[in-house]
């Protein structure tokens, strides 16, 4: 039976590009928190300690910018206090409304303790921060995973991939911002960063293979849906091929042997590529998947407006990140962290 849709209403995306920015920033924030917590236990002067300033900068900037983007995605942002007036323990989004301020506070406390050079307190805060970061990764992923109406979201692989790509983004962001910090790129532990990135990239490839194998065996509805979209629509074919090519390029950048005179520009390319991979993954998961009908045929045609709830909104969030970065780097230049005091 051949079915052609003649008349359907226009269904819009309920989650705006702000959500993409939120998941991008919070993924980077939570994973940079995990990384920073790990780095905080490095010995003074070690590679881990030298990566910490950039990671703390990324953590502070993204953990402050993320909630702004999240608030903007509410169609009634002035009513956000309802989250706190009507707590709803069975809703992941409500839990997130409580977990997120805890995370932001801990992230800022961690940054403050790092700046004050209090290693023992920093390590204590690192443990709490890591637990809080895990709770953020769990809630953001579970929020999507429980939506059985969208098979592409209702899979355990989504939180896993969000976390892994988020970590890739955190590493890219650290590599990007390091050049603007007082220490610059001179002493930057690029081999350590690449090693972590290599592990993350292996994990991503492994997860993709597990997903594909489970899908081929018929145990993954999300894989089945993805295959169907790939077969039926040119736009999804393009997205997949683009992702594979982009992913291969990124793997090449992460794994290629470093030339002895690796300049700042190569680090820049790697950083931007990692950030781009993180962002594009979230764009596809949020915006492209919302164009897949729950019931109808074909794909919905959903435009992005140029204004505040579209392109300008996304650019605005990047602008906020730039502004926060400017503030943090200014503070680090003007008020450098105190010399190491006795613990």
């Amino acid at each position, binding site marked *: 039976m051949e079915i052609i*849709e003649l008349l359907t209403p226009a269904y819009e995306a309920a989650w705006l590009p702000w959500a993409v920015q939120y998941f991008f920033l919070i993924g980077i924030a939570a994973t940079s928190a995990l990384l920073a917590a790990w780095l905080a236990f490095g010995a003074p002067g070690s590679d881990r300690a030298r990566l910490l300033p950039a990671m703390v900068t990324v953590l502070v900037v993204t953990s402050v910018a993320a909630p702004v983007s999240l608030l903007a995605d509410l169609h009634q942002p002035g009513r956000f206090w309802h989250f706190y007036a*009507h707590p709803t323990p069975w809703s992941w989004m409500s839990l997130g409304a409580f977990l997120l301020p805890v995370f932001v506070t801990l992230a800022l406390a961690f940054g403050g303790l790092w700046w004050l050079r209090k290693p023992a307190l920093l390590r204590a805060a690192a443990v709490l921060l890591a*637990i809080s970061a895990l709770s953020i990764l769990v809630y953001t992923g579970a929020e999507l995973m429980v939506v059985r109406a969208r098979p592409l979201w209702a899979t355990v692989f989504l939180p896993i991939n969000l976390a892994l790509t988020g970590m890739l983004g955190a590493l890219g962001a650290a590599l990007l911002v390091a050049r603007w910090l007082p220490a610059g790129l001179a002493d930057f532990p690029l081999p350590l960063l690449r090693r972590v990135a290599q592990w993350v990239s292996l994990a991503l490839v492994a997860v993709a293979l597990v997903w594909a194998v489970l899908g081929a065996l018929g145990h993954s509805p999300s894989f089945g849906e993805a295959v169907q979209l790939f077969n039926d629509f040119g736009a999804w074919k393009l997205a997949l091929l683009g992702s594979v090519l982009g992913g291969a390029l990124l793997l090449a950048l992460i794994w290629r042997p470093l030339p002895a005179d690796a300049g700042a520009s190569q680090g820049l390319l790697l950083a931007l590529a990692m950030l781009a991979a993180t962002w594009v993954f979230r764009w596809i998961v949020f915006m492209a998947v919302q164009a897949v009908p729950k019931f109808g045929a074909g794909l919905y045609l959903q435009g992005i407006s140029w204004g505040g709830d579209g392109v300008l909104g996304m650019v605005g969030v990047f602008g906020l990140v730039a502004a926060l970065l400017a503030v943090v780097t200014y503070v680090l230049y003007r008020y450098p962290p105190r010399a190491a005091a006795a613990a």
Partner: protein
Amino acid sequence: MTTTAKTLSTTAPSTSKRGLLRALLGFGVTATGVVVAADPAEAAMDSQPPRRTGTPGKRYGMLVDIRRCIGCQACTVSCSMENLPPIGQFRTTVLQYEVDTKVPGTPPAMVSLPRLCNHCDNPPCVPVCPVQATFQRTDGVVLVDNERCVGCGYCVQACPYDARFINHETQTADKCTFCEHRLEAGLLPACVESCVGGARKIGDLNDAGSEIATLLREHKDEIKTLKPDLGTRPHVFYIGLPDEFVDGIDGQAGVRVVPGH
């Protein structure tokens, strides 16, 4: 589903660093403890909050007889006039399809599919609401308190039938309410009232003598609902729905335009 409020232990506070660290650790455990105790792993379907009071003793449902639908869209228009959603957004509408069975000599047929909120018995949209703005009543009607709704759009994502939308004017979640304001007054919903072919019927499923309960009994082998495998237990029942329409349309999309607003 309840959470127990947890408080920090009330041992005498220590002024030493160790005491501070212990207190901080306790706070951290408490913060994550709340997550563990709530067990929202089962949230969103199969874990419904308690229903709020509705018309006592009733369970509303709708029966749509596709064989009687002529695709006139009178229901779409009357619902829009009764509830005044913004132009381009619909609480109910009739989706129309051209179906070619590819049997030689048989011309393509038109299928008109009236669609609206199914007021499911296990609604996936209710448990996800972070502020409990959307709720289900004891009579089965699922509603949105649009003074509490923050417009987060989570319920719109969770609905497997694309029945919900964010109203452009109120910027809150919106959907068919079974015209509960009319039902309360003893009237029929606007779409049922205006249906030219008599395809839409509404009534109390708990009343064995009601028209809808009688029809459901008579046609019990032909009754279908949309996406039954999801376990939402929709309460909009269809007679004459082709099997190819039950789990979603596998077909060619019509001409679409980018919605402008």
